[in-house]
């Protein structure tokens, strides 16, 4: 007869290993991380596990963080640059619970910063670790759908397909297309996807003083940029890489340097631009900077009034 297990015979509810993953799994992930750090930009395969969060929602970043986090760490989690976006809140609560760790919204106080789609504006310091959530680690995937082929391209350093795409883009549009997930060459060897950060953030990777770890849970790859590594965005000599800029300053803090979110205010197409990096913007406002919409309801986290 079929063996019956009662629920009570399972481990008592609510007790998980520190940071959720068991020690063997963490060890396996750390080995992959070490390999990735030793070969900057190379996608190291790892035995990704099913996590309590669905694939596509940050399992790679979560597994990387879970493998490196300790009780002395200070953990920050952002999505689209902000600490209070729903998925960032969800992941931060997860680690607060399973890793019993101090969490923060202040970039400069964090030892581990897990992110989806942005790098903070504040310059990262030695000893800080950025953990990126990556949906598609393979920069060549849209051009060559076979893993067996893309693996060979990386091994042979044959990135012609990617340069072809740049060429076609200039031939078609007169400029290199692509505003986010803009491919980079790491240490002049491996072509890498920096994850869907806007190209605005690419320069922050070059010769950074922090360690950058990239986790793709569903695709089961980890890659890394160690500190002080050359990272070059692909371009042509006569069509050099450039970053986004806005005519407007941040409506709340007046920053002209930061990456901006576009906020639609009403049906008439009125809009304002605010810093995507919520911590950066808050710091500036605290320091006394004020933009044209300072005092706006967004500032207080409530519903904004439509423009009169």
């Amino acid at each position: 007869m079929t063996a019956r297990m009662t629920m009570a015979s399972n481990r008592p509810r609510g007790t998980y290993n520190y940071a959720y993953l068991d020690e063997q799994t963490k060890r396996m992930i750390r080995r992959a991380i070490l390999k990735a750090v030793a070969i900057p930009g190379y996608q190291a395969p790892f035995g990704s596990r099913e996590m309590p969060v669905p694939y596509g929602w940050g399992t790679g970043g979560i597994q990387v963080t879970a493998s490196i986090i300790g009780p002395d760490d200070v953990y920050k989690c952002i999505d689209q640059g902000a600490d209070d976006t729903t998925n960032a809140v969800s992941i931060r609560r997860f680690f607060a619970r399973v890793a019993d760790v101090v969490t923060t919204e202040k970039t400069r106080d964090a030892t581990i910063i897990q992110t989806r789609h942005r790098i903070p504006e504040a310059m990262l310091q030695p000893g800080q670790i950025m953990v990126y959530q990556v949906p598609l680690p393979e920069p060549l995937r849209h051009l060559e759908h076979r893993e067996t082929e893309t693996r060979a391209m990386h091994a042979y350093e044959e990135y012609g397909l990617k340069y072809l795409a740049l060429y076609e883009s200039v031939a078609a549009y007169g400029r290199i297309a692509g505003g986010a997930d803009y491919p980079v060459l790491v240490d002049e060897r491996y072509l890498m996807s920096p994850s869907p950060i806007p190209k605005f953030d690419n320069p922050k990777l070059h010769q950074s003083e922090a360690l950058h770890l990239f986790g793709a849970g569903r695709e089961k790859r980890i890659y890394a940029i160690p500190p002080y590594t050359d990272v070059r965005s692909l371009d042509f000599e006569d069509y050099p890489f450039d970053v986004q800029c806005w005519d407007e300053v941040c409506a709340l803090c007046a920053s002209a340097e930061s990456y901006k979110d576009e906020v639609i205010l009403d049906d008439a197409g009125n809009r304002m631009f605010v810093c995507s990096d919520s911590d950066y913007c808050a710091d500036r406002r605290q320091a006394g900077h004020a933009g044209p919409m300072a005092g706006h309801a967004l500032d207080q986290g409530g519903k904004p009034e439509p423009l009169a």
Partner: protein
Amino acid sequence: MAYVSVKGGERAIGNAHQWLDALRRGALSVPEIEIDQIREQLSFAVDRVMSEGSCHDAELAALAIKQARGDLVEAIFLVRAFRTTLSRFGASDPIDTGSMAIQRRISAAFKDIPGGQILGPTFDYTHRLIDFELADTRSAPPAVLADEPLADQLPTIASILAHEALLETAEPDSDDGSDPHDLTREPMAFPASRAQRLQALARGDEGFLLSLAYASQRGWGSTHPLCGEIRMGEVAIAFTPEELGFPIEIGEIVTTECQMLSDYTGSADRPPQFTFGYGLSFGHNERKAMAMAIVDRALRHAEIGETPAHAVQDEEFVLYHSDNVEASGFVQHLKLPHYVDFQADLQFIRKLKQDWLAARAPATPADAGAAAAE
């Protein structure tokens, strides 16, 4: 107009979960569903969740189904996530389906076979008329026992065909006694080993495999399968603890196994033989086992010397996308905010549009004046 954003924060999540829990419970006037009821009376759902959840635990699967409100893909995800937290203390010996305690065993290849065609508890010959009496509870009379028990062991079709060496034998991946590839521990690698392929298919989404198998029968594939055998029943699980050094039986599980036969004309190295595809699931699930067997055979084209021409024969396409937990996660992740990247796209399109308009703008008097001044 309200400002729409995902900056809901802590409160929104808390409220959302509360509402979710209320919806799961449904109307309070209706009795809460119990795990035992799901396990006993929705057993096909339980079997599927165990198979694709890669975890044989009927109660756990039933609980997951309750928590997921009947969404089986969600329930499979719950089981998989729980499985991650379990420690592994070893691997069982391979199950011996040849010694299965048969409940059902049929072959389409032969009219009669040693041990007989055993119909078993099948829907196949029911008329699909909704039985409205089931709307109320109806007592089901106990099933009548046969006069004589079945033979202890019913030989497999494979063993029957083996006498004339008419059926290929399955090649093990390696002889060195190393562990087979385990997808729950290591990422997929291509070209896929037989172990990896079968494991991926066994945990793969039934619907996806069903469609691929169907397409291959209709021409998008070339296996022309014949059902060699389907058997369903209990198999014993044996485990050899290190301390004992000999196998002990730790329980029994129900499995469904399918061998699909395809023909093959032979080559310089191989005599003409039937080739086969293999399917296996936990519990009773013939649709899955059959679809899996058809897809398995289609993916073996390289070993057999066939030219792949269809999606069902493309192992990267099939194996990468057969996992419904991965598929569901990635498709649905599009609900997450992507506005930072969208802002980058907006910028790009706006610039392109500016260029486009500028290229078509008529020359202004100011341009003419500037040109004259040069």
